[in-house]
C-alpha cells in the first residue's frame, strides 16, 4: 500500500528549471560528479588534468587572477564593515564554488567556511531549491543554519549564484562573524542557551535578495532579530559587496579566457588540490597509526551557570579520541570512534564544521598553501560516528561555540602530525599543539553611547602558540581558527566596549613548560565604565586542559576567572587612591584585592564558564587568554632561556626552581641562573623522579581497582558512559586494556544525573521533505 505523507505535499515546486542547460537537475549533476569521484578515486574522474597539462601557464594565470581577486575582494569589502570583529580581526572569508558546490578557491581569513558554505549549496541542491524558491541570476541566499553544516550561528553567509549566458556555472559565498545573533544571551558565542531554540536567529538557505537587492521583509525581520543591527547591516553589505565583486571577476575571467577554460579549471584545480594533499603527506609525514586524545570540561552544575533547563545542569566532559592512519598512498583516515555524545550546551559541532574546519588548522602546518579547496577533503577519509559531539543525531543541539570543542579536538591532530614531523627530521614543523583559545569576554546591555549593545572580545585571537622542537612557541600571537590572529588595539576595543583597560600583560606561567616552552598568553584587566544594565560572562577551559604537551613537555596552564563587584573604585579614583593595575601575575599570591574595598565581592576560581551576570560601572573583569603547550623535558631547557623568562616575568621564580631545576640569584629583580649548580640540581631531580615513580604496570593495578569500584567523579564517569553508549569498539578496547570482567559496565542511568538525550533522539533528516547531506563516514 502506498501511503502518501500529507506533510510532503504542497512543496510548491515549479517545473524543471534546467539551470545547467544540459537537461540535468543540479542534483543529477552533483550525483554524477560524486559517482565519477567514487568510481575512479580522482575528483570528477579526472585522471588527467587536460587544461593544466596542455597550458600550464594559462592555468597558473587563471589561478592567480581568481585567487588574487578573492583576496582583493575580501580586503576591499572588509572596509565596509564597522564591527571590529570583521574590520580589525578579519573574521570574514570569500569562497568560489563550481556549480556542484565544491570549493575551487578561497580567500584568506576564516577559511573553515570552504566547506560550510559548500554544505549549504549542497543542501539547496539536494532539496530542489531550483524548483522552489528557484535560483535566478541576481538572487542572494542567506544561511547560518548549524544543523546543515554551519559552525556556529554567528557566521552568517551570503551565497550568490553565478550565471553565464543564462546558465548556472558556479556560486560565490561570503561569510562574516557577526557580533550578535539574538540568542538567549548577548555576544556571538553565548553560553546561556542549551538548545538550538535559544541559539539565536537561524536562517536556512533563505532567498533574501533578488535582482542584486536584499528583500525588505528580510531586512526588517533580520535587523530586529539581533541586538546589534548597525553592525549587522554593514556586515551584510560587506558580504554582498564581496560576492558581487567576485561574480564580476569571474565574468571578466570568462570574457578573457573563455567559459570552457574556466569550467575546466573549476574541476581540475580541485583534483589538483586532492593530489597536493597526498604529496604533502608523503613529503612530510610517515605512514602508520597515530593515537591522540583531547578533553574539554563542561562544568554546568555551578550556580553561576544559569540555564533555563534543569536537565542541562550537570558536569560533563567532552572526549575526542583520534586515530590517524596515514596510508601508503599518502591518503589518510581520521577516525573519532569513541567520542562522547553531544550535550545540552552550545559546544556541539556539525560534521561539516569538523571536516571543513580542519583545513584552517592544516593550512598552518601540512598544507601552507594558497591552494586550499575541496581537494584536500577528497583526499581524506573522516569517520565521525553519528550521535557524537562532532556529528549530532538530534535536531535540538546548540552550536553557538562549537569552536570550543573543535579547537580542542584538533589539538590532538596537531600532536599526531608533529610526531610524524619529528620522526622524519622536519623539526622546524613540530608544534606541540595550540592554546585553548579563550577566555571569551562577552556580554551586553546599554553601552557608552546609550545603545543596546553586545560585545565579544576577539583578544582570544592572540593566544600563545605551541612549542616547536627547535624553539619556543610564540607569545600572544595567534589562534588556531584564524592564522592571521591580531589582538586588536586597546583604543579600538575601548570604543567598541564600555570597558576600560587597567592592564594588558603577558600572562606569567601560562605557556606549557618544556625544553621549548609554549607561547605565553596574556591578560587584560577591564573596568566597566559608562554602561547601563550591563552584563558579562566567561567562557573557556578551567577545570581541564585540552592541549597536552609533547614528548615530555607540559600542557599549558588551565584557565581561571577573576571578577570583582562593589569594588569602591569610583571613590578611589575620585580621591586619587591606588587602583588595581597590570597583570594578576601570581594567582597564588593575588594583589588586585589589595586595591579594592575589603567588602568587594570577588570571584576567583576555576569556573570559567558562566552565564550573563550583572556588572555595574567600576566592576572588574580579568580576560586571561591562554598559553600554548610545551615540548620536551623541562630539565633540558637552556639556562639563558630560563633567565630570560624570569626577567621578563614570563615565569615565576618558584617554578623556575621546581620545574626547570634552576638555581639562581636575584639582585633588584634581575635573575641570574647558575649553570653548574643547575646541572647538579637537575641530576638530583631525575633521582627524585625515580624515587616517587612506580612501574606503569604496578600503577595500572591500582587504577584498575578504582575502575572496578567506580571511584571517579561523576563527570569522568559520565564522559565514559556516553562514549560507551555510542561505541562498542571503544567499550571493548577499554575493558580489554584494564582487564575488566565481562559483565563490567557503566551506564548513564546509574550516575544520578539527568541523562536526557541518552536514549531518545531525533535527527533533522526525520523532518518532512528534508534531505540532509552527509559528507563523512558515520
Amino acid at each position, binding site marked *: 500500500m502506498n501511503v502518501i505523507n500529507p506533510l510532503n505535499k504542497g512543496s510548491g515546486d515549479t517545473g524543471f528549471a534546467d539551470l545547467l542547460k544540459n537537461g540535468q537537475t543540479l542534483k543529477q549533476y552533483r550525483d554524477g560528479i560524486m559517482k565519477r569521484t567514487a568510481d575512479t578515486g580522482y575528483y570528477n574522474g579526472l585522471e588527467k588534468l587536460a587544461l593544466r597539462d596542455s597550458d600550464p601557464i594559462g592555468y597558473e594565470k587563471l589561478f592567480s587572477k581568481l585567487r588574487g581577486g578573492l583576496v582583493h575582494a575580501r580586503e576591499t569589502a572588509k572596509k565596509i564593515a564597522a564591527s571590529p570583529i570583521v574590520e580589525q580581526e578579519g573574521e570574514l572569508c570569500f569562497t568560489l564554488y563550481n556549480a556542484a558546490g565544491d570549493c575551487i578557491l578561497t580567500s584568506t581569513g576564516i577559511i573553515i567556511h570552504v566547506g560550510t558554505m559548500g554544505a549549504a549549496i549542497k543542501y539547496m541542491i539536494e532539496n530542489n531549491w531550483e524548483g522552489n524558491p528557484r535560483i535566478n541570476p541576481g538572487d542572494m541566499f542567506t544561511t547560518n543554519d548549524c544543523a546543515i553544516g554551519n559552525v556556529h550561528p554567528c557566521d552568517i553567509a551570503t551565497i550568490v549564484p553565478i550565471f553565464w549566458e543564462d546558465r548556472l556555472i558556479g556560486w560565490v559565498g561570503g561569510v562574516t562573524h557577526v557580533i550578535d545573533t539574538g540568542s538567549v544571551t548577548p555576544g556571538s558565542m553565548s553560553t546561556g542557551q542549551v538548545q538550538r531554540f535559544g541559539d539565536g536567529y537561524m536562517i536556512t538557505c533563505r532567498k533574501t535578495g533578488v535582482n542584486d537587492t536584499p528583500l525588505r521583509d528580510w531586512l526588517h525581520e533580520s535587523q530586529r532579530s539581533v541586538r546589534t543591527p548597525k553592525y549587522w547591516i554593514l556586515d551584510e553589505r560587506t558580504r554582498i559587496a564581496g560576492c558581487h565583486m567576485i561574480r564580476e571577476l569571474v565574468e571578466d575571467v570568462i570574457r578573457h579566457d573563455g567559459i570552457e577554460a574556466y569550467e575546466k579549471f573549476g574541476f581540475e584545480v580541485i583534483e589538483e588540490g586532492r593530489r597536493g594533499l597526498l604529496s604533502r603527506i608523503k613529503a612530510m609525514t610517515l*605512514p602508520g597509526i597515530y593515537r591522540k586524545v583531547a578533553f574539554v570540561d563542561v562544568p554546568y552544575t555551578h550556580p553561576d551557570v544559569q540555564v533555563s533547563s534543569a536537565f542541562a545542569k550537570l558536569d560533563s566532559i567532552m572526549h575526542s579520541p583520534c586515530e590517524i592512519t596515514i596510508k601508503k598512498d599518502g591518503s589518510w583516515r581520521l577516525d573519532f570512534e569513541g567520542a562522547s555524545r553531544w550535550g545540552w550546551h552550545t559546544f556541539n559541532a556539525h560534521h561539516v564544521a569538523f571536516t571543513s574546519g580542519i583545513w584552517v588548522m592544516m593550512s598552518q602546518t601540512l598544507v601552507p598553501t594558497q591552494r586550499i579547496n575541496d581537494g584536500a577533503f577528497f583526499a581524506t577519509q573522516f569517520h565521525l560516528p553519528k550521535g557524537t559531539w562532532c556529528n549530532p543525531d538530534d535536531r535540538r543541539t546548540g552550536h553557538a561555540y562549537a569552536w570550543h570543542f573543535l579547537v580542542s579536538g584538533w589539538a590532538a591532530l596537531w600532536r599526531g602530525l608533529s610526531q610524524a614531523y619529528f620522526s622524519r627530521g622536519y623539526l622546524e614543523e613540530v608544534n606541540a599543539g595550540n592554546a585553548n583559545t579563550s577566555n571569551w569576554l562577552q556580554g551586553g546591555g546599554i553601552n557608552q553611547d546609550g545603545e543596546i549593545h553586545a560585545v565579544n572580545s576577539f583578544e582570544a585571537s592572540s593566544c600563545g602558540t605551541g612549542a616547536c622542537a627547535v624553539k619556543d612557541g610564540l607569545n600572544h600571537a595567534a589562534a588556531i581558527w584564524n592564522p592571521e590572529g591580531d589582538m586588536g588595539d586597546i583604543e579600538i576595543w575601548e570604543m567598541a566596549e564600555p570597558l576600560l583597560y587597567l592592564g594588558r600583560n603577558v600572562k606569567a606561567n601560562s605557556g606549557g613548560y618544556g625544553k621549548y616552552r609554549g607561547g605565553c598568553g596574556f591578560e587584560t584587566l577591564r573596568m566597566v565604565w559608562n554602561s547601563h544594565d550591563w552584563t558579562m560572562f566567561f567562557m573557556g577551559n*578551567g577545570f581541564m586542559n585540552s592541549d597536552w604537551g609533547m614528548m615530555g613537555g607540559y600542557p599549558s596552564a588551565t584557565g581561571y576567572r577573576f571578577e570583582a563587584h562593589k569594588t569602591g573604585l569610583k571613590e578611589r579614583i575620585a580621591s586619587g587612591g591606588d587602583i588595581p593595575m597590570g597583570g594578576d601575575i601570581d*594567582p597564588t599570591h593575588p594583589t588586585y584585592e589589595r586595591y579594592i574595598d575589603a567588602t568587594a565581592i570577588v570571584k576567583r576560581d576555576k569556573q570559567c564558564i558562566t552565564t550573563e551576570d550583572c556588572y555595574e560601572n567600576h566592576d572588574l573583569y580579568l580576560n586571561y587568554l591562554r598559553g600554548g603547550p610545551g615540548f620536551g623535558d623541562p630539565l633540558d631547557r637552556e639556562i639563558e632561556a630560563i633567565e630570560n623568562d624570569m626577567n621578563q616575568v614570563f615565569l615565576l621564580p618558584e617554578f623556575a626552581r621546581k620545574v626547570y631545576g634552576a638555581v639562581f640569584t636575584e639582585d633588584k629583580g634581575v635573575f641570574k641562573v647558575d649553570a653548574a649548580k643547575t646541572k647538579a640540581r637537575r641530576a638530583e631531580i631525575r633521582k627524585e623522579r625515580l624515587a616517587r615513580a612506580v612501574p606503569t604496570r604496578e600503577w*595500572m593495578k591500582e587504577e584498575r581497582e578504582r575502575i572496578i569500584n567506580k571511584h571517579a567523579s561523576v563527570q569522568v564517569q559520565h564522559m565514559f558512559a556516553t562514549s560507551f553508549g555510542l561505541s562498542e569498539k571503544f567499550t571493548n578496547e577499554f575493558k580489554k586494556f584494564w582487564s575488566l570482567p565481562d559483565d563490567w559496565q557503566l551506564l548513564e542511568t546509574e550516575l544520578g544525573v539527568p541523562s536526557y538525550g541518552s536514549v531518545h533522539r531525533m535527527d533533522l533528516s526525520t523532518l518532512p521533505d528534508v534531505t540532509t547531506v552527509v559528507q563523512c563516514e558515520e
Partner: protein
Amino acid sequence: MSYTNEQVSHLIEGTLDWETVFRMLSMPKDHTRFEQYRDALQTKVTFKDRIVLPLSPHMYIVQTVNAKKWVVKCDCGHEFCDYRENWKLHAVIYVRDTEEAMTEVYPKLMAPDVSWQVYREYYCPTCGVMHDVEAPTPWYPVIHDFEPDIETFYKDWIGLPVPERA
C-alpha cells in the same frame, strides 16, 4: 633544496640560525633530510645500536647490534621493549592526582582540577628523563601513541633500504 649535515646537526641542537630555519619552513621539503637526521643523531648517541627511527628527543627505535632486533631505547641505553609495543607500559610513572602535586608545577588555579584531569609523567627507569606527560581523565587507558609503518616509509616513501630485522 637541501641542507648540509652541519645545518641538520644544528637544527637538532636548536642552534640553527633563524634564516635557515625560516627557509626550511617556507621552501619545499628536502628529500634527504631523514637520512641526514638519522646519521646526525647516530653520532650523538653513545650506544652502538643503529637508529631506525627517532621517536622523541631521548628515545629511538633502534636495531640492536647483535640480535638485529628492533627495540625502543632511551638515549641513556635503557631498553624499553619491542618496537611494536607501547613503551609507556615499560616506563615508570608518576601521576599528579592531588592538588598538592599539581601546584608543584603550576600556580594556584592554573593547573587542572584532579577530579577532572590528572597529569601522568612517564620517566625512563634508568636515567629519569621525562619522555612524556599525558593529561587524561582518571581511568583513561595508557595511550599507545604511535605505530609507525617503518617498512613502507623506508622502501616506498624515501627509497632507503629497510634495516634488517630479526
